[in-house]
């Protein structure tokens, strides 16, 4: 197991390196550079040129890349010219919001997936199962942004049950109980919209896993020993079906990244996805590079996590 994990991590390192080069070159293609936002219109072109030389912006790209990546490793991601803040500070402010939104989404995803998967796997080909399968069918096809818009329209505007934008009530004081409740309240609808879509594949997977397990010999044995049906499901089938589902946890994180861009945009939730879109539109290059790098590494780590869990659950994978 350890050799697999270490080998898997070693494969990851060149991937991250390559990712950083691609992102850097992409950022170079964007109009403007680190100096654009700092230029004072009263300074003459010679002074700008001197400043460019001093900042190393006239060096060949690999030298600049080296400067950039060494800075990144020291936690210095540059300056956002739009927000006039160090990128690290700006990103970490927004990251907290996205982090909690993701946690909420994951909790809801599994809170929905496990009961639905269990019911539809246990009573397969009944009326209830068909309803659940029908839902997964629609959820599988529906694009997340349309679903989220419909949710916002129905529950946010039409019924007015949930706040429709932001991450907290404007007047709330941090630290108080009301602040906490308001945060949760603002997160609920976006998280639910995302969870109802992302949960679909887990439901489908759990369902087929349970249908598979309940025909196995050890279940037959337990039945013949007279174990009650509910106990069989709780202790024998559920446990054995859950492990492979748990292994997809890491891929789930990767999926959240794409979703959060849409969700945060629709619900005007001040997280990283929204910051990313705004920065691309404002051409805030240093923020864009930092965010793509962050999301890229997060998705690499998510895949790594899933691969490791899978290798623990299913020893055959280690052999490859």
């Amino acid at each position, binding site marked *: 197991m350890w050799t697999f994990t270490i080998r898997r991590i070693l494969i990851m390192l060149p991937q991250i390196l390559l990712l950083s080069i691609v992102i850097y070159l992409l950022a170079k293609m964007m109009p403007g550079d680190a100096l654009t936002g700092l230029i004072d219109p009263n300074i003459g072109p010679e002074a700008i040129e001197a400043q460019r030389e001093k900042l190393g912006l006239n060096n060949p790209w690999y030298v600049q890349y080296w400067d950039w990546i060494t800075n990144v490793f020291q936690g210095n991601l540059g300056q956002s010219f739009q927000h006039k803040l160090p990128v690290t500070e700006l990103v970490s402010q927004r990251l907290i919001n996205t982090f909690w939104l993701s946690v909420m989404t994951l909790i809801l995803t599994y809170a929905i997936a496990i009961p639905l998967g269990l019911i539809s796997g246990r009573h397969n080909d009944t009326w209830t199962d068909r309803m659940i399968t029908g839902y997964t069918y629609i959820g599988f096809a529906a*694009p997340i942004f*349309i679903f989220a*818009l419909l949710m916002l329209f129905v529950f946010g*505007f039409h019924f007015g049950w949930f706040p429709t934008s932001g991450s907290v009530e404007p007047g709330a004081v941090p630290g108080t109980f009301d602040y906490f409740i308001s945060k949760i309240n603002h997160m609920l609808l976006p998280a639910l919209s995302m969870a109802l879509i992302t949960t679909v594949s887990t439901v489908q997977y759990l369902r087929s896993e349970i249908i598979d397990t309940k025909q196995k010999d050890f279940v037959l044995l337990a039945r013949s020993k007279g174990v009650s049906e509910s106990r069989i499901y709780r202790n024998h089938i559920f446990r054995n079906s859950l492990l492979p589902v748990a292994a997809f946890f890491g891929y789930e994180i990767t999926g959240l*990244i794409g979703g959060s861009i849409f969700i945060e*945009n629709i619900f005007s939730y001040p997280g990283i996805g929204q910051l990313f879109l705004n920065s691309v539109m404002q051409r805030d290059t240093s923020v864009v590079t930092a965010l793509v790098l962050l999301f*890229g590494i997060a*998705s690499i780590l998510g895949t790594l996590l899933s691969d490791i869990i899978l290798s623990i659950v299913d020893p055959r994978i280690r052999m490859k």
Partner: protein
Amino acid sequence: MMLQSEAVKQKPMRSPSSWSILWREIVRDKLALISLIFLVITMAFVYGISLILNQSEIVKVDLFAIHEPPSENFLLGTDYGGRDVFGQLIIGTRNSISIGILVTLISGIVGIIMGVVSGYFGGTVDNILMRILDFFMILPTLMIVIVFVSVVPNYGVMSFSFIMSAFLWMGIARLIRSKALQEKELDYVQASKTLGSSHLKIIFTQVLPNISSLIIVTMTLNLAANIGLESGLSFLGFGFPESTPSLGTLVSYARNPQTLEYRWWIWLPASLLILILMLSINNVGQALKRATDAKQRRG
């Protein structure tokens, strides 16, 4: 003796062609059949009508007709520029389907070539191609596409579809590779090699036809996903320019809370149309998928 002559008289049963299996599965599955009919009618309608409609007329701003609710003049009302939503819906559907098909074809061809070459030749070629594929797999696709769209100079429909395709070929490549790996071990390929057929001939006239049903299934399912992704990008403002409306462009007007709350006629029809289109294509795709697996067939 009697039995023997009867057996001689009877024609040997031919195994059904893959096309007839695909067709039979769709007919057996009522939902898939309805979806297919819906798709054919929608496409005929949309492509037919848009021949008559004048695109530049529809996207022309008319300041005297801003945000009109549905009426006799405007079947589905007008948007913030006084443009007829119904006309935009027709043109948007056409553009979305067209770009979906285009992206599916481009990414499909790239994926098939990568997959077949990798699976058929194996060894070092396979290793190198798969490492490239692995790298593309870990990229945060949506973000990279958005960044690309914003940096490409003289951006248009063609460059948009190439950018999308560049990050969407991996799934099909992986699938085709694993299938080609199995296929090349089979006797017919070995026999063909022994007879001296060139690799190209074996790949194009023998291996590819044998995995064609898989290709059709994957491409159908990809089409649904690509229409969704395109409309998503247009929704965020990184897809089609506003002068070429897509379904996502119409939905994107709902990012204005006023429009979302009070002017449903602008965004709701387009949203539902995207939803139904993707569901229908998926239904057809799932039926085709069952057809390729003898164990799951209903027909």
